[in-house]
């Protein structure tokens, strides 16, 4: 069969990204041809500013070299402008007569700079700032001439002005609005920016309206004249007053155009379903985006439909901005103006403002209905990516409102997430401690490989791919290196490459449609890979058994090895075995049996754990069953995403300070909760007095005995980033401790995403939500506690009821090599 033909018009970032996504998911599906008006392969338009400023070269910013097109069998017609498309015969024709026939057409014509309609706008020396040719013209002019005028004090205009100044020109920026970058900054930040640029040597004419451009004796532009009669000298005039979607071709094709080529959520044009459009030329729900992150989201959707999977939808994007002028940090996102905008929809917004004009720092956070809706940062943008994340997720920030202004690092008291500003870090400073990746390596990969997303950086450098605690820092570096319009993770994150559905989508569908098996879930939710992958299968398996206890059947083959072999794999392939010691108490008998097992099975290391138990390390897989038998102690589940340990202090039985019997409380909690699988591991502690010797403050549930009862703290974490637990409530009796703790853990089991610790779960849904469910709804709390007990009732101890726990016995024996057949 002859392949379908795909023709792309426009060889820019959005279009080529669509092709890359398409080649990734459906290689070889199409015979592909590309027309590009510029005589270059696809380059990173965002980085033209650093090229102009002399910080990078043109070669540095090429994203797809000529060889890429060859390797992927793409016919590239570079430097050939398309002048006609015949939608009936389905033929594309370029200026020079080159023709290509198509079955699917991808229009990525991008945008054109807007040229002010003033006399003299076509004089030599008057240019726009849009492509490599413009950039080269500016670099050339800077070598010959002295005076430059940039019309437009927006993002692009300021980057152009900075570049020309760096190349030695005397630059005046003309801006008609009352302050710089009014679409991204409020007046305070805009004026701070102006001050700082003036200190660098730029001149500004704010509020000036350009009247006409006059030529000198040589015919080249010489003077910019304003409507008020004043004038400035100019050997070079750069127009940077905005862009317009480039739609001339689409109009001649009779496609519906309204502020861009109008497309559906599938990125197909509303006029012709064979024709797709992505990028700055496309108008989606009335918006034509000009930043790269939304364009890449569009590319992904278009590729999905071109690949005939037909499940992605683009539903619009939130955008953020950063200026690429070295040494100036500014960031804004969302509704940064707040009520100051005077618009009716901004009424009822509140602003938290921090202003230090002498230090050159200004931060404004706009809040509406307890949610962050906008941010404008100047001078200190370290937390820009965090604010943007809060904004995208629409998280309720009421409980962290007092700390919000001081950034993400103010929420925890240790860890290394916010220890330094990405921009000021040295190249050899370590960013990812797990994988030993320094800042220089990350920057290099971002530049050389043209990376735009956190996922891509993870893939190529491993940075933030292990424990994830440096994610914020890596995002900052990405933002700093790739520019502000780096592709932030979309609001809804797909579970893995097998699907576009998020963890929440999958949880909801399993509950709503009563899905009971992995196969059913995958087929219902149209998984791309028939048996998923090592990321989604364990998650879906957990969602099934936690949502439908006793009904959904556990699938051991979809569990990580530790939960299949009920021991913890070590780096040499041996296992570690930790028997359960209720509340950390043991007996002479148990210790004797442990000692005998160590001798009998020649176990090389015996170690006391942090959870008040004993770890036997280096057990051979073949020995596991007999080790469990000989120990005669229950499984400690130290290998599982499940209840691990309940750490206790000595308590009132012995301790002269003890106010409550913490050991007994711990034992009771452990007996009530053991065998409980959860989204992630769960650790508890009970202390008998506020001295808190069991370290309840860093546990998923930490109980502290006081004279009048028990305090319950939740969502603490002693791991990657130390997080102090948050006070939930105080109760009087031991029975209440069981009920409240159990109800909270059941809530987490029902709502948490797989591999999300309680601290991240509570951060996501907000402590208020948990309080509502546990403290304010007595019936709901009791129901939660009952559901947990129902789930746990009759659950097997996998070390002794191997059949019932569906442990595959074959894994414990090797197959011998028999004689040749």
């Amino acid at each position, binding site marked *: 069969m002859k392949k379908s033909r795909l023709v792309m018009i426009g060889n820019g970032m959005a279009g080529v990204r669509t092709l890359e996504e398409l080649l990734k998911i459906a290689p070889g599906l199409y015979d592909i041809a590309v027309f590009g008006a510029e005589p270059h392969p696809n380059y990173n338009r965002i980085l033209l500013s650093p090229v102009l400023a002399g910080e990078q070269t043109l070669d540095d910013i090429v994203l797809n070299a000529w060889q890429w097109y060859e390797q992927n069998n793409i016919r590239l017609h570079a430097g050939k402008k398309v002048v006609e498309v015949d939608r009936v015969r389905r033929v594309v024709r370029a200026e020079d007569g080159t023709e290509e026939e198509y079955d699917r057409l991808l229009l990525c014509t991008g945008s054109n700079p807007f040229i002010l309609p003033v006399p003299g706008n076509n004089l030599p020396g008057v240019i726009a700032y849009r492509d490599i040719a413009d950039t080269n013209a500016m670099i050339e002019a800077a070598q010959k001439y002295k005076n430059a005028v940039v019309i437009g004090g927006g993002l692009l205009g300021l980057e152009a002005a900075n570049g020309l100044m760096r190349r030695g020109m005397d630059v005046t920026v003309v801006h008609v609005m009352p302050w710089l970058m009014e679409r991204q900054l409020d007046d305070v930040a805009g004026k701070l920016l102006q001050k700082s640029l003036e200190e660098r040597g730029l001149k500004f004419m704010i509020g000036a309206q350009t009247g006409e451009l006059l030529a000198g004796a040589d015919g080249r532009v010489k003077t910019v004249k304003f409507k008020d009669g004043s004038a400035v000298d100019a050997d070079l005039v750069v127009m940077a007053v905005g862009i317009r979607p480039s739609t001339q071709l689409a109009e001649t094709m009779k496609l519906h155009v309204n502020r861009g080529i109008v497309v559906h959520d599938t990125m197909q044009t509303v006029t012709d379903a064979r024709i797709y459009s992505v990028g700055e030329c496309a108008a989606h729900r009335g918006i034509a985006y000009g930043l790269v992150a939304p364009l890449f989201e569009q590319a992904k959707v278009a590729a999905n439909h071109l690949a005939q999977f037909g499940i992605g939808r683009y539903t619009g994007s939130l955008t953020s901005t950063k200026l690429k002028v070295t040494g100036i940090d500014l960031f804004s996102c969302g509704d940064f103006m707040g009520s100051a905008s005077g618009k009716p929809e901004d009424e009822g917004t509140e602003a938290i403002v921090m202003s230090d004009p002498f230090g050159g720092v200004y931060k404004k956070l706009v809040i509406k209905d307890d949610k962050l809706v906008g941010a404008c940062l100047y001078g200190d943008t370290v937390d820009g990516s965090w604010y943007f994340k809060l904004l995208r997720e629409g998280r309720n920030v009421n409980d962290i409102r007092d700390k919000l202004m001081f950034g993400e690092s103010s929420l925890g008291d240790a860890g290394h997430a916010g220890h330094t500003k990405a921009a000021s870090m040295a190249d050899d400073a370590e960013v990812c401690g797990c994988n030993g990746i320094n800042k220089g390596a990350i920057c290099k990969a971002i530049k050389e490989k043209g990376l735009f997303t956190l996922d891509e950086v993870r*893939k*190529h450098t491993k940075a933030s791919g292990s424990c994830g605690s440096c994610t914020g820092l890596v995002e900052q570096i990405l933002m700093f290196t790739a520019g502000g319009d780096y592709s932030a993770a979309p609001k809804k994150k797909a579970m893995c490459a097998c699907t576009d559905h998020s963890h929440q989508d999958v949880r909801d569908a399993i509950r709503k449609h009563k899905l009971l098996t992995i196969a059913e879930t995958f087929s219902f939710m149209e998984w791309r*890979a*028939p*048996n*998923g*992958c*090592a990321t989604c*299968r*364990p998650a879906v398996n957990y969602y099934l058994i936690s949502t439908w206890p006793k009904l959904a059947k556990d699938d051991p*083959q*979809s*569990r*990580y*090895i530790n939960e299949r*072999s009920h021991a913890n*794999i*070590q*780096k*040499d*392939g*041996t296992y570690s075995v930790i028997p359960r010691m209720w509340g950390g108490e043991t007996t002479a008998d148990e210790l004797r049996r442990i000692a005998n097992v160590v001798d009998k099975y020649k176990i*090389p*290391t015996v170690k006391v754990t942090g959870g008040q138990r004993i770890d036997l*390390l*280096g057990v051979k897989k073949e020995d596991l069953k007999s080790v469990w038998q000989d120990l005669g102690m229950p499984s400690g589940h130290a290998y599982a995403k499940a209840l691990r340990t309940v750490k206790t202090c000595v308590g009132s039985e012995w301790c002269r300070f003890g106010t409550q019997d913490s050991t007994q409380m711990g034992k009771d909690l452990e007996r009530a909760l053991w065998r409980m699988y959860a989204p992630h591991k769960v650790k508890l502690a009970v202390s008998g007095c506020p001295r808190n010797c069991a370290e309840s403050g860093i546990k998923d549930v930490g109980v502290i005995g006081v004279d009048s009862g028990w305090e319950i703290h939740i969502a603490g974490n002693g791991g990657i980033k130390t997080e102090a637990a948050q006070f939930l409530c105080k109760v009087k009796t031991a029975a209440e401790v069981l009920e409240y703790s159990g109800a909270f853990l059941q809530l987490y089991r029902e709502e948490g995403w797989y591999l999300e610790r309680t601290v991240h779960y509570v951060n996501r849904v907000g402590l208020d939500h948990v309080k509502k469910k546990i403290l304010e709804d007595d019936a709901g709390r009791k129901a939660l506690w009952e559901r947990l007990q129902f789930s746990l009732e009759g659950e097997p101890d996998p070390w002794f009821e191997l059949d019932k726990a569906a442990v*595959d016995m*074959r*894994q414990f024996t*090797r*197959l*011998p*090599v*028999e*004689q*040749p*057949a």
Partner: protein
Amino acid sequence: MNQWTVICRIADIPVLGSRRVGRPRGMDIAVFRNDRDQVFALLDRCPHKGGPLSQGIVFGTSVACPLHNWTIGLQDGCAKAPDVGCATKFTVKVQDGVVCLDALELATLAIDLQPPRAGPKREIHQIA
């Protein structure tokens, strides 16, 4: 002509799972079975840090190493990009539900490769 050694019946390998094959010399071989009853054999040693691939989660024609989650292709033993490296691959024959490996490969392939080590360094005290 290949000399084939009988290993097991296909039903002896769990679906989307694996078995370990011990051999007189050299490290174990992992034999995998996917949901389409395809059988693959690799040295039970991830090219990254020697993790036992037999213990990984099997999906499609890949296995995820249990130590650091590298994805290893079952057909060629090679790591999925951007990771680089290959586990030694063994030839498999399945006939009438019986899984066989090549006798010569069993006896000679990757005999020298050592398993990764863990635990206290034991030899040091012995030097007298």
